[in-house]
């Protein structure tokens, strides 16, 4: 019977195998017919008014939805797709940042600052596509995985004191979002290398060749970001499609030494730069795996308006635009895009596009810019400039203040955005405070234009989840409606500083503790740039990213709160001293309570010693114990004089000591 069954089983296996193979083949054919895995690489360059240069690398890989039995990827990093599958991540963003985005001079309204300016350290948020009760466990596993993947201590976000679940203030509002930051995480090459490993060409070919570590980390600000969205439901054995977007934003100062050497008249001229002078490398051809490989050079609205004002004509889009009276580009752009201006003002950004495909090893691509005349302009600012600071002194209590100051450019938006008189500016504030900063939410005060206002007038919606000691951080989400004419608004909230266990302090405890950045967003304002694009074939993810309607967001500074520290060298001393005191209490109180017994026994012994021999003495002792003390009670004499003796000895010693002191001082 067994012999018969085995071939049957084998046959069955073969048949099913054949069938499966057929299905796989069919699936893959179908897949190829539909979509392929794609990779795009782009670089955006943009001069800033304060002689700095923004370089924004944008890499996008996407994997289409596929059948679950094909875990193989051509271009897409396997680690990421496994991570998405395992932890059911719907959307995730991880950023490593060093330095602070200077909102005042680098702008805060464009798509680049509002989606790429990140708080210092590590920021991670993730939306899960899982039942509510599993999300915390998934988050913990995700942090550990990312920690291993990016060589960073993201695993510290695992503890429930480090992350929070914002209800509605974070952009993809849902209850399945978790948010955590590590403000003190140091970011360096060991984080960049694994990030580069996710690219199909790494940094060996294409635009990523420019990523020269010393020049990146010499910059004023750099932020590497990883954003992934899984599209499509993972139903019926289909893996979700994933779009992975990796950006690296670096703000650099091109050759400052040469600028200082130049003579005084040239000091106001923006510095000249080229890719080779900034990064020390040139782009020798594209990454062959990339669909498109482009470099963009962006002149923002303010700059374009200024240049047009100087030259009184539209030189930027004329025939010989790359050598106009103001500046000279070293390479000829392939295309020019002009922003589709939605506002009444006719200022529009201008974007030059350079295609890398034309360049090769023998003829590398190098873009340079040489300014001929000095130009001064302003970047477009967010409606309100947010900053945050601490108030109060001492280590017991303090207050956090978030101040919102209107920027000059905001008036223009106000005028254009609202025609009616009851114009209101909506501001969302999201603030997480660690548990050891015990915030009293009732003490929230609002000042508008230096005038105290009732909280209910200004705050439209508020969501607060108070912190629990050693369990969860405090979260505050506010929706403010401010009048458009506001020039400044300040929110203050008081807190008490907690005291931690000796093990909970970080290694350098006296440095203080960081309060993560608050997120201030303006939902009525959208950072959006729409460029007129003729060819839909050659579309670029970066430009389509610019066209997305995302609210303007900015991060405030990280606060450093000094906390009181105990003496870290004292545990043994404290334990021994305290225990001694408690032993003293216990022993002496017990002694005081049973003193009568001792006295009586001593008396008994004295009496017995006088009268009787040894054995009767013991017997009487035993009897006394057995019969209880009260019979002998009345006969108990006054206590022995030993105490008096010891006291007199003490007195003698004291007097002697005093005399010695007297002698010492007056001789």
């Amino acid at each position, binding site marked *: 019977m067994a012999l018969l069954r085995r071939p049957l089983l084998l046959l069955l296996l073969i048949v099913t195998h054949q069938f499966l193979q057929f299905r796989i083949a069919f699936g893959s054919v179908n897949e190829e017919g539909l979509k392929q895995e794609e990779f795009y690489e782009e670089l955006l360059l943009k001069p800033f008014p304060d002689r700095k240069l923004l370089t924004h690398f944008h890499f996008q890989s996407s994997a289409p939805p596929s059948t679950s039995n094909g875990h193989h990827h051509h271009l897409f990093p396997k680690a990421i797709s496994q991570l998405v599958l395992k932890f059911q991540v719907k959307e995730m963003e991880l950023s490593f940042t060093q330095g602070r985005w200077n909102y005042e001079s680098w702008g805060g309204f464009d798509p680049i600052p509002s989606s790429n300016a990140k708080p210092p350290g590590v920021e991670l948020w993730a939306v899960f596509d899982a039942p509510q009760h599993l999300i915390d466990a998934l988050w913990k596993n995700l942090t550990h995985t990312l920690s291993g993947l990016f060589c960073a201590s993201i695993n510290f976000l695992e503890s429930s004191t480090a992350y929070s679940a914002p209800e509605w203030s974070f952009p993809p509002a849902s209850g399945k979002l978790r948010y955590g930051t590590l403000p003190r995480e140091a970011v360096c090459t060991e984080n960049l290398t694994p990030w580069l490993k996710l690219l199909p060409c790494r940094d060996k070919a294409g635009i990523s060749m420019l990523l020269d570590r010393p020049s990146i980390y010499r910059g004023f600000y750099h932020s590497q970001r990883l954003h992934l969205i899984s599209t499509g439901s993972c139903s019926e054995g289909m893996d979700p499609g994933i779009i992975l977007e990796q950006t690296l934003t670096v703000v650099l100062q091109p050759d400052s030494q040469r600028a200082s050497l130049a003579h005084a008249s040239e000091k106001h001229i923006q510095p000249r730069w080229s890719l080779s002078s900034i990064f020390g490398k040139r782009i020798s051809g594209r990454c062959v795996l990339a669909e498109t490989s482009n470099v963009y050079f962006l002149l923002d609205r303010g700059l374009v308006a200024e240049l047009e004002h100087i030259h009184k004509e539209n030189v930027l889009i004329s025939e010989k635009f790359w050598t106009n009276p103001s500046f000279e580009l070293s390479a000829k752009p392939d295309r020019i895009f002009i922003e589709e201006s939605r506002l009444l003002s006719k200022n529009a950004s201008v974007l030059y596009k350079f295609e890398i495909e034309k360049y090769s090893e023998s003829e590398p691509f190098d873009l340079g810019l040489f300014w001929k005349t000095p130009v001064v302009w302003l970047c477009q600012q967010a409606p309100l400039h947010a900053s945050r600071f601490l108030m109060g*002194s*001492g*280590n*017991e209590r303090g207050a956090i203040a978030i101040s919102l100051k209107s920027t000059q450019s905001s008036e223009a938006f106000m005028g254009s955005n609202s025609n009616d008189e009851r114009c209101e500016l909506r501001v969302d504030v999201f603030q997480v405070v660690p548990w050891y900063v015990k915030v009293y939410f009732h003490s929230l005060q609002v000042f508008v234009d230096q005038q105290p206002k009732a909280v209910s007038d200004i705050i439209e919606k508020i969501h607060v989840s108070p912190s629990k*000691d*050693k369990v969860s951080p405090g979260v505050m989400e506010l929706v403010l409606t401010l009048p458009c004419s506001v020039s400044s608004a300040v929110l203050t909230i008081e807190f008490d500083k*907690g*005291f*931690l*266990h*000796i*093990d909970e302090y970080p290694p350098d405890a006296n440095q203080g503790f960081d309060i993560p950045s608050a997120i201030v967003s303006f939902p009525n304002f959208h950072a959006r740039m729409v460029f007129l694009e003729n060819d839909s074939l050659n579309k670029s993810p970066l430009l389509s990213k610019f066209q997305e309607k995302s609210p303007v967001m900015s991060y405030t500074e990280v606060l450093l709160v000094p906390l*009181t*520290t*105990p*003496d870290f060298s*004292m*545990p043994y001393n*404290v*334990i021994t*001293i*305290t225990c001694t*005191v*408690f032993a*003293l*209490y*216990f022993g*002496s*109180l*017990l002694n*005081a*309570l*049973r*003193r*009568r017994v001792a006295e009586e026994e001593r008396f008994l012994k004295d009496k017995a010693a006088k009268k009787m021999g040894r054995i009767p003495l013991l017997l009487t002792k035993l009897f006394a114990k057995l019969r209880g003390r*009260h019979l002998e*009670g*009345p006969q108990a*004499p*006054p*206590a022995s*004089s030993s*105490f*008096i003796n010891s006291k007199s000895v003490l007195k003698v010693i004291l007097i002697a000591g005093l005399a010695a002191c007297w002698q010492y001082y007056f001789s």
Partner: protein
Amino acid sequence: MQDLCTMVHLCYCLFLVLSPLIELKDSQIIFCTDVVSAMLIRATGQNLRLAYLRSLESLDLVKQIEVSGDIAALIYLCNPFTIVACVGLSTSPIENMAVILCLYGACSRLIPLAAFGWVIATHLSLYPAILIIPVIFLLGCGPDSPPRKLFLQRHQQKEVLNQSKLPPRFSWGPVIHFAFWAFLWSVYVLVLCGISLKQFGGLWEMFKSTYGFILTVEDLSPNIGVLWYFFAEVFEFFRNFFLIVFHVNILFMILPLAIRLRHRPCYLAFVYVAICSMLKSYPSVGDSALYLGLLGWFVNELADMQFSLFLFCGYVGVSLLSPVMHNLWIWRGTGNANFYFATAMVYACLQIVLVVEGVSAMLNHDRKLRNLITGKPQDAKS
């Protein structure tokens, strides 16, 4: 001052009751509770004095032993600790009033009031639960008197056994009555709490975040006790052990004290209150105010207590130095945690000396009475 930190974890009900009132008049309520406590202390003191006079009369010792009245209320009101607790808007005066209410009710045999005071005091700060032992003694055999043995001896000497002059034997009636009322009040309080806390997780959540917070010393903010620094420094794996040790330290002393001081239930209550305020997880100056106030009831009995000047100077010194050290450490950042901890340590030692010397002075007082009765020459140190 430093005792405000415990406020947050007080029972929710208290806040529900007090919060609208506190908005009206801040310190008025605390002030009024202090005045009411002082009046109750005075009434109890009078009560005790009358009872003690009666028992001394039956021993014919009135001439030798002085008894005085209402100094305790004055001590309570004029104590700087009480004033600080009142000005600092601490809630400890409310807890203190509940304790005093309990003792007053037991002394004047208002059993429902005593039960109410005991239940509320336990509800507010847990530690007064051990006051049930002195209250039972108070209800069972009446207020403080010299040991019963002395009366028997006295009457043996006179060879007349006048039952009416003897202090009553232990009677179970009032105790059962008290138990019934205590049960009733606690059910009442729990039901009220349950109703008001239904939407916040119910009673279990309340127990966890009030009694649990008291028993597992979670808040490490500096206070005048020593446990905050101890638990901030102790190794995590010893934490549970020491929590048990410190709380058992209170419980271990209950029985020996109850045996030796059973004829003086009010004094027993005082000792318990003092021990609790010394060993509790978040002590405050308000607790010291309570036991120092109660100390006034026993001024005469404790007249020949040792080290009283030393204790007085110690208390003054600690209460002056401790704010200075706190300021140096927390506000100026020039001091160190150890400076403040040292004053807390000295304060703990002072309380220990007070309790130990108080107990032995009371035992000596009893001895003195016995010697007076038996006609032995009195010795200074007996």
